[in-house]
């Protein structure tokens, strides 16, 4: 298989992004031999991956390959699904999050999440952002933290005069940025994003993409996406899942898109398969 040096798809792979962190890659999340079952169906098969700190890690793959399942394992949202069973190790700073002494609620306060469909609470914009801090018993300067989170989500300028109006009155793209503000307000370490732009129009999606780029300076971002151009544009590392819940390739994004080890990954990326 002859692979040229140029990218397989027409997009500038993030060469300028490699210098984001001067530190050597510190691993925040690591999966080792991770299996997930829904009843008798195996959704993830022996996944091994190490997600570096303060980087954007994209997870791509065809529908039903287990991308979202993997993401939801990280903050144990799969606990909500009765038939879901997890085997193997998924460690956060070296601690297996599935150990008996890990409280999933505490874990989720360190690992925030943004969903595919914007899901603001039927509350005011302010209360949406303040929600995480309130439930965690924060009693400092709430106004400042809300403003900071809204600025961080690039929404402050648009909503600063209507903080008391309902979060549901915003447009889809604004709602999604509100959800990002809600996720970052309690200042977690990791932000998980499950296809955050797939329900949005292209303009709103590109705003979110710019935002993800900025978020990576403070947070470790793990993003599931269907959109390979998006993965190439915004991520530092890319994990490719293929059918059967197998992680077939995990490497620097440039390497994965320009010169993947696996022929099947190249076929998938160029659209011949999947």
């Amino acid at each position, binding site marked *: 298989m002859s692979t040229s040096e140029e990218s397989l798809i027409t997009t500038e792979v993030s060469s300028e992004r490699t210098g984001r962190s001067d530190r050597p890659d510190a691993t925040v999340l690591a999966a080792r031999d991770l299996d997930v079952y829904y009843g008798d169906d195996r959704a993830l098969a022996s996944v091994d991956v190490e997600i570096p700190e303060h980087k954007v890690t994209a997870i791509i793959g065809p529908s039903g390959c287990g991308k979202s399942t993997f993401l939801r394992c990280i*903050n144990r949202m799969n606990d909500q699904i009765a038939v879901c069973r997890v085997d193997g190790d998924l460690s956060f700073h070296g601690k297996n999050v599935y150990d008996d002494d890990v409280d999933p609620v505490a874990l989720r306060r360190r690992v925030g999440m943004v*969903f595919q*469909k914007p899901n603001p609470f039927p509350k005011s914009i302010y209360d949406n952002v303040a929600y995480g801090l309130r*439930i*965690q018993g924060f009693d400092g300067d709430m106004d400042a933290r809300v403003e900071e989170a809204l600025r961080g989500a690039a929404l402050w300028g648009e909503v600063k005069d209507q903080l008391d109006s309902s979060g549901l009155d915003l447009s889809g793209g604004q709602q999604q940025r509100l959800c990002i503000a809600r996720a970052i307000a309690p200042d977690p370490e990791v932000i998980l994003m499950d296809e955050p732009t797939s329900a949005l129009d292209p303009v709103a999606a590109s705003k979110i993409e710019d935002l993800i780029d900025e978020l990576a300076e403070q947070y470790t971002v793990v993003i599931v996406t269907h959109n390979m151009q998006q993965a190439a544009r915004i991520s530092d590392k890319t994990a490719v899942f293929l059918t059967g819940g197998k992680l077939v390739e995990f490497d620097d994004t440039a390497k994965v898109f320009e010169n993947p080890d696996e022929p099947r990954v190249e076929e998938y990326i160029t659209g011949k398969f999947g």
Partner: protein
Amino acid sequence: MSDSPDSKRRADGGTATERTRGEELFADIDLRREHLKNRAFLGLIFAASMFGVVALALLLLDVVTDFYVGLTEFEISLVQFLTADGSRRPERAGFFGAIIASVMLMALTAVLSFFVGVGAAIYLEEYAPNNRITRLIKANLSNLAGVPSIVYGLLVLAALVNGIGVGPILLAGSVALALLVMPIIIVSAQEAIRAVPDGVRNGSYATGATKWQTIRQVVLPSAMPGILTGTILALARAIGETAPLLMIGALFVNRTPFGPFDRFSGMPTQIYAWAAEPSQHFIHLAAVGIVVLLTILLSMNAVAVYLRNKYETAV
């Protein structure tokens, strides 16, 4: 001559076709019977839907006529009616004690049934595992809602009034009514809780909220309009209930109750007692009482409708 109308039409082209009458063009299709059936069925279902409305109108007309006759011929003063206690003498009898008794009944019933009912609904929707016992409880809730109200009266009579021996007091009456409306409150609260989208719940869990925080801060506020609507409608049903109150013996009391341990006669039982009197004056007092009861009932329903409309777009 072979110049049939058909060939002429063809020769003239489009203009002739346009001028053709619809009846001629579709002369071979006979739809009269089908249209007749349509109209007959429409008439039938319209009559069915009007039946309830007409029955209600006739009922109201009858009551309002008696109400009017009561005010004019028997010179029942509305002010006195609303402020005086009951009495054996019709010209001195009023509805005040019964109204106060019913208001206190409603308040106690609401307190007794709301928290237990909403609590049960939260458990069944948010916590209960999906097993046989849960399914049994859920299935039996609708059975409970269908139990005749007099049975609840019988239960309270046996357990409280005679069993513990509290007598026919207001608290016993509200226990009977609370048992009666609890299944309705549970079912409507369940529906309201189920209508809260899962995405919102997940958003709360993912922000690091516990289950109770999620229920308290996100689920209940979203579901509350629906829960309140169901509760008000259930209480509106309770306020008109007569059978359970008769069963526990809440009758023939003319004084205004001052607390939950007083004997009482609510609005429906007072109306029942008056209507059973031979004197025409008492019967017209009953009609005035019915108008007062209906007014309160319809106002409660109006509040429920208002709440539902106000919040139905909120989620």
